[in-house]
């Protein structure tokens, strides 16, 4: 069965620090990969997605993620975080060409010290 692991449950950084959130998935076939963000009191929204092509994907608000197929990873990065990046971040995976079931990781809470 597919699963998604986010090993960092809570990350605390100071403003301007660099960010990397880990995401590993277990599925042997071709996959679609996503990062969603949930700001405090708001609903989930898409940050970025990977379907095929360039494994380095750029999203909104300066975020990017790199798909490393050999490591089954899709880590999220941002070179310099801001206080407004305080949120919960969810990695998700779905089987290629399947929109019916997306498996979400347990989430990483990011707290930014001003």
């Amino acid at each position, binding site marked *: 069965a597919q699963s998604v692991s986010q090993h960092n449950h809570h990350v605390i950084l100071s403003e301007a620090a660099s960010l990397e959130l880990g995401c590993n998935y277990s599925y042997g076939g071709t996959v679609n990969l996503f990062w969603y963000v949930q700001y405090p009191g708001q609903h*989930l929204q*898409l940050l970025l*997605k990977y379907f095929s092509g360039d494994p380095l994907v750029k999203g909104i608000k300066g975020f990017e993620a790199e798909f490393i197929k050999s490591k089954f990873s899709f880590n999220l990065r941002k070179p310099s975080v801001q206080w407004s990046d305080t949120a919960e971040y969810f990695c998700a995976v779905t089987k290629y060409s399947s929109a*019916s079931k997306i498996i*979400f990781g347990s989430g990483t809470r990011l707290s930014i010290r001003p």
Partner: protein
Amino acid sequence: NAGVTQTPKFRILKIGQSMTLQCAQDMNHNYMYWYRQDPGMGLKLIYYSVGAGITDKGEVPNGYNVSRSTTEDFPLRLELAAPSQTSVYFCASSSGLAGGLSSYEQYFGPGTRLTVT
């Protein structure tokens, strides 16, 4: 477009009561989903639908029922509420059209916070 709307925003139920969580979308999306979000557990898929009249179980369907009589609406029914169903419930939709890169992006509603005591 309003996107995905959910009602109510908050609800407190007593054990054994029933209720329906409403979800509607105005994007003409084929796929709709119900998730529950428990602290530290991420989102778990309860039920999903690939079109009007078609529903299927997700990862945690026990204690819930759904129906999809129209493209727009996808209500979630809780029968005999239990404390284990205390959670935040999110409805989502996606277009689900094969071949389109945007088809797998899910749009989420604001959530319903349910407490069962």
